[in-house]
């Protein structure tokens, strides 16, 4: 039994989500191999080889693998799939894009967003926006899985010494091409992996007012997040959205400011260790999950809190 983990990276840096996925792979028992498919991605392969618990790294390096196009990346995974009993992707935008394509080609079910491993064929996953946890068993020969990264503690990024083996890259499918990318620049920690997250909702009232969260986030070294209402209203960029259809986070501390706490938002943050809610409506559902709630005007409370830290 050997598990293949598909690395998430930007051709220069291995993304943290890969380390959580390796941790899930380790729970299955058996060897863990990592596939790095990219362009000029040797540095990424070396980082993957240094991760704790990795036995071997496969590197497929070619221009057509540069941008993670689903057609090419899935073909690359399928080229080696027959050697593995489990194929794991992080449940990120990239992993969710490619994993079902691989599964369907192998004619197996795909198991999405696992949060627990019970055995080599039995897994736990949230359904209905996290309002229920399903335990599912797969009878398929190969298990294709995406891993909710907040469900597993990352393995150490150093200490491993796996060999890197070059793999022949698959040909370009010719079906799709990459046009461009608009990456939101940020000096703050990455939302999905942050230790502290400060999120704003509709209560902030405008994009301008959202800046009131900056000093607080700076003091806490926090990533900024947002509710869907705030994103839809244009107060915050789309990729800040925390919730069932946005990012799933589980930081040590989550501060919800001006967020009522709809089911869909709670789905993305209720596994946070400590939740603080600041809201002027004492009846807001967010207080039902908050460890510490403060009823008050956020425009007074937030600056006061930033000053007190």
């Amino acid at each position: 039994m050997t598990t293949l983990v598909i690395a998430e990276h930007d051709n220069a840096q291995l993304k943290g989500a890969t380390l959580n996925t390796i941790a899930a792979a380790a729970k299955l028992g058996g060897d863990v191999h990592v596939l790095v498919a990219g362009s000029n991605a040797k540095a990424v392969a070396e980082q993957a080889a240094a991760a704790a618990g990795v036995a071997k790294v496969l590197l497929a390096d070619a221009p057509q693998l540069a941008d993670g196009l689903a057609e090419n990346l899935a073909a690359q995974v399928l080229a080696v799939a027959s050697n593995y009993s489990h194929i794991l992707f992080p449940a990120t935008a990239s992993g969710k894009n490619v994993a079902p394509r691989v599964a369907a080609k192998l004619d197996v079910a795909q198991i999405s967003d696992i949060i627990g491993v019970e055995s080599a064929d039995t897994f736990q996953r949230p359904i209905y926006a996290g309002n229920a946890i399903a335990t599912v068993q797969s009878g398929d020969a190969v298990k294709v899985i995406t891993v909710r990264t907040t469900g597993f503690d990352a393995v150490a990024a150093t200490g491993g010494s796996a060999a890197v083996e070059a793999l022949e890259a698959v040909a370009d499918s010719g079906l799709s091409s990459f046009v461009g990318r608009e990456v939101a620049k940020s000096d703050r920690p990455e939302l999905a992996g942050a230790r502290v997250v400060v999120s704003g909702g509709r209560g902030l009232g405008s994009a301008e007012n959202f800046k009131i969260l900056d000093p607080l986030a700076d003091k806490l070294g926090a990533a900024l997040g947002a509710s869907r209402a705030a994103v839809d209203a244009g107060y915050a960029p789309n990729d800040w959205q925390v919730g069932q259809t946005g990012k799933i986070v589980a930081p040590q501390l989550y501060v919800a400011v001006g967020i009522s706490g709809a089911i869909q938002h709670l789905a993305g943050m209720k596994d946070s260790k400590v939740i603080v809610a600041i809201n002027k409506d004492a009846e807001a559902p967010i207080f039902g999950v908050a460890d510490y709630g403060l009823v008050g005007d956020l425009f007074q409370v937030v600056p006061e809190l930033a000053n007190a830290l």
Partner: protein
Amino acid sequence: MKVLVPVKRVVDYNVKVRVKSDQTGVDIANVKMSMNPFDEIAVEEATRLKEKGGATEVVAVSCGVAQCQETLRTAMAIGADRGILVQTDAELQPLAVAKLLKGLVDKEQPQLVILGKQAIDDDANQTGQMLAALLDWPQATFASKVEVADGNVTVTREVDGGLETVKLKLPAIVTTDLRLNEPRYVTLPNIMKAKKKQLDTVTPQDLGVDPAPRLKTLKVSEPPARKAGIKVEDVATLVDKLKNEAKVL
């Protein structure tokens, strides 16, 4: 160009579901059912493509029990020209649905299939990608912008950290993200008109597909409950609690 839009009947997004006490599933008897919100966005996008002249016909399809006809009628009230129900009482998982949809695609020969990115009940986010794989078509998931021109579809996708744009050769698969569009309200006259539109019913057997589930659900349980929190009076107390009680600062 013909556009196929698969739609799913799910528990309404406002309903807080309860896990059954025997842990066999969630209790969906007597709860409000609606069209999956991402699928509404898909129907809206297909309808807009037709209104702009990019599509000639929009066909809505749904797989499941007889009541899925209501969901198809809603799609037709938004703007779909006709509907097809693949009727079965079997539990349907994404791989089975993808195979049923492939059967319909082979029959209907659309150039574009627009699906929602995920259904809010199983939260799988798989069907579109699986259909693309089975057909060997290109895919663009999590779309926030779709433009069809010259035998290609150019799609802006919502990815971690921002947006990316890909160009696919038609025929192709697109799955919708929340911000692709705002679905229109269905008006009473359009609901009445939708009742007269054609709705065909087929079975998985007609399509030569065995819809049996591959994953066995052993149990469905409540997520661990959070212990009740407290309300604090002021900022000073909050900071004190975070430092000394929760020890997160």
